[in-house]
């Protein structure tokens, strides 16, 4: 009963973060359609729930799944994309809903290895087409450059440049305080849940091939997976017995709360000011 209640609370929090003042923050452009923003917010709320089930599909326990869902709900990039019309946010819902059903089927059939081998081919199709079509725009060094930008600490923790005129540039994709938990989650998944990490790596390559990099924001599709990795990292850290590490983790958790407060303040107070000067430069539905 308690986990379900917690999940509801997380989803309510997610809804509040995505819907509160949605018509005014960020400010509207002449192309803004409020109902589409609400669609996007709904997708973000649904994704919070999806992340919970996704984590469970990776055989993570309920506590870890809840932590993953909470991490997704407060992810700076997910909040930013959940409050504007974002096709990639809607794509993420379809992709991960499909992934949950696929995983459910695959793990039951126990043919994970086959799927792991097939994934590269599936994911290689679109980048392959891009590369053939735009190969003069995308030499190998550009792809490598894109790849390194995507995993650069600057993009991950300090400055999200994937939506130059309308984005929340003063924050990274995630909070800095997530870093130790992310490392823990990655190491754990290297030794255990390779499928999770393989998916992140493939989304990474997939995004780096995009001719519209970084504005295509394809890397956003990996946010639910990052959330699971971080959630797992937090759950593992809770199990540590050493007093020194326990103190360190408590400090980090306090810092997460402080960064969360910083995000909320910046998003609702300063972000509208910074975006309002660029409204004429934002094309498409915002």
């Amino acid at each position, binding site marked *: 009963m308690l986990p379900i209640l917690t999940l509801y609370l997380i989803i309510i929090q997610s809804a509040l973060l995505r819907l509160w003042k949605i018509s005014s923050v960020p400010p509207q452009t002449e192309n803004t359609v409020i109902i589409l923003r609400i669609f996007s917010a709904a997708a973000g709320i649904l994704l919070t729930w999806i992340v919970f089930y996704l984590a469970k599909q990776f055989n993570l326990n309920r506590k870890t799944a809840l932590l993953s869902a909470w991490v997704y709900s407060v992810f700076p990039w997910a909040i930013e994309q959940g409050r504007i019309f974002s096709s990639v946010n809607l794509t993420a819902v379809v992709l991960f809903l499909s992934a949950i059903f696929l995983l459910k089927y695959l793990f039951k059939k126990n043919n994970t290895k086959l799927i792991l081998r097939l994934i590269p081919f599936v994911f290689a199709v679109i980048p392959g087409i891009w590369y053939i079509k735009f190969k003069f725009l995308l030499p190998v*060094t550009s792809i*490598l*450059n894109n*790849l*390194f*930008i995507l*995993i*650069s*600490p*600057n993009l991950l*923790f*300090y400055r999200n440049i994937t939506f130059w005129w309308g984005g929340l540039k003063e924050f990274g994709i995630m909070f*800095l305080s997530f870093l130790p938990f992310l490392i823990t989650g990655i*190491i754990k998944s*290297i*030794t255990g849940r390779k499928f999770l990490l393989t998916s992140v790596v493939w989304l990474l390559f997939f995004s780096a091939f995009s001719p519209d990099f970084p504005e295509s924001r394809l890397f956003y599709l990996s946010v639910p997976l990052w959330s699971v990795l971080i959630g797992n990292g937090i759950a593992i850290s809770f199990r540590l017995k050493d007093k020194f590490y326990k103190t360190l983790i408590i400090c980090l958790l306090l810092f997460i709360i*402080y960064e969360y*407060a*910083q995000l909320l*303040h*910046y998003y609702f*107070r*300063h972000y509208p*000011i910074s975006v309002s000067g660029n409204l004429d430069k934002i094309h498409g539905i915002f």
Partner: protein
Amino acid sequence: MEFFKRKRFTFIFLILIFAAIIRFYRLDTIPGSLYTDEANQGYNAFSLLQTGKDEHGFFSPVSLRSFGDWKPPLQTWLMMPFIKFIGLTEIAVRLPSAILGVASVYLLYLFIIILLSDFKYRFRIALLSAWSLAVSPWHILESRSAMLVAVAIFFLLLAVYLFIKGIRNKIYLILSFFTFGFSLYAYYGLRVVAPLLILQLLVLYRQRFLQKPHHLFLPLVVLVLSVLPLIAGFTRNRDVLFGRARTVSVFYDRGVKLKQWELMTQDGLEAPSIFVRFYHNKAYLYLRQISANFLSHFDGRYLFLKGDTVQPFQIPNTGIMYLPDGLFLIIGGVFVLTGFGQLPKKMLIGWLIISLIPAALTFMVPTSNRTFNALVPFMVMTAAGLSVLRNKRAIFVISLVYMAATGYFFRQYFINLNSYHSDWWNYGWREVVMQTAKISSKYDNIIVADINGMPYIYYLFYNRYDPGKYQTEAIRTYTADQFGFEHVEGFDKFLFPNQLDWPQVKRSPLKNTLYIVPASLTADTGFFYEVKDPQGLALFRFYEF
């Protein structure tokens, strides 16, 4: 017995030969010219040999005032015997770095063997670490120039190696603490790194020292004695210890303060002050800035594609590590965290974190020079990553990939750096000085525009100018520019105006005066001599009116 253990002496011998060839091959001409800092240290070593004083006339200084940046003196001291026997030449200036660069390769090999003493594959990892360091673009660049850090890393590595040996033999512990103290004279960054590494080592081996605390007494006395001259110098002038640290510090840069002001202004006067301080306080903003600086050193573009973008630490279109290193660095990092014992793991991770701290506190990041000590954990992690390869076919393929990567780097460093980017190393001054020497007797004044580096030092260096005479003749105002550098106004018949107004000079030139002006400052014809770079582009022009 393991293959690598049986053949280790052959392997390390071959690695050292290769490391030496790469480091000594055309040492005087690649990079194509002495950088100002190199020329300065060379001339100061010459000055100390001749007069016992540096260029400023300070007797036996523990920090060289130099261009106002107060250089640590160890590298200059090491140049003295070479200058004594070879003369004041490029090769004498660069030899200490190159020799200690090769020695560092061997030292790293020894360090890994002793650090991983209980580990089955220690010889394999030690040899791969030595090989990685021997062919490392980062290490080759630094050990072929007199930029302090190649010497610094040798002494730091030696100190840590002796410390681990000292756990069993007290004499080594005394030597270790002396070397730690001595290393503080090698590079500013070590004044942060070395104490933190000592602290880390004491914590890691705390059981041993808690049992026998008296074992630390003598080493600590030796440490204090070895840094005493530095402390004495600091009491007279605080720049002796901190040098230019203030002007490159993150706290000196106004970026963070301006950001805070902008955000507080946006909050408006009506916002409660406690609320504004909670969100926009300096502690949080500086924490973000310093952590961003710290983490910028893990950016793949910096490590594997572009490298350091500050001259002269650039290698054209090359990272400071090889591209395939990226993969093995990750594998090795995970291996170190999960497969190594607690002590080596903590040692290497701690070393890596500590090495990046000095650079994180400055605003010019990422920087390969200030983080050079991170090379040790980076190389060991790469080697650990490579050591997991067992399949012969995979080893063959990876070897081919590395051969291609190394070949590319060699072409970029040994050919393209001089051919296309000679300006990064202030190319041209040698020819300018030689040409000036031929015709100087015809003029009453020689005016050299102080634009590219510090031209006075090249005149002193290449003319082997009598240091005693220079110390009495030098005209200095000791006024630092915005970057903390002090310029020399002139000596003898030479003048080095910092902001030469060329149009004004042409309107009212001095009679019987030679003007030497960078080509970037004037496109005027009428010059009678021109110094060009290897591509044929004009660098300096000689005028007389």
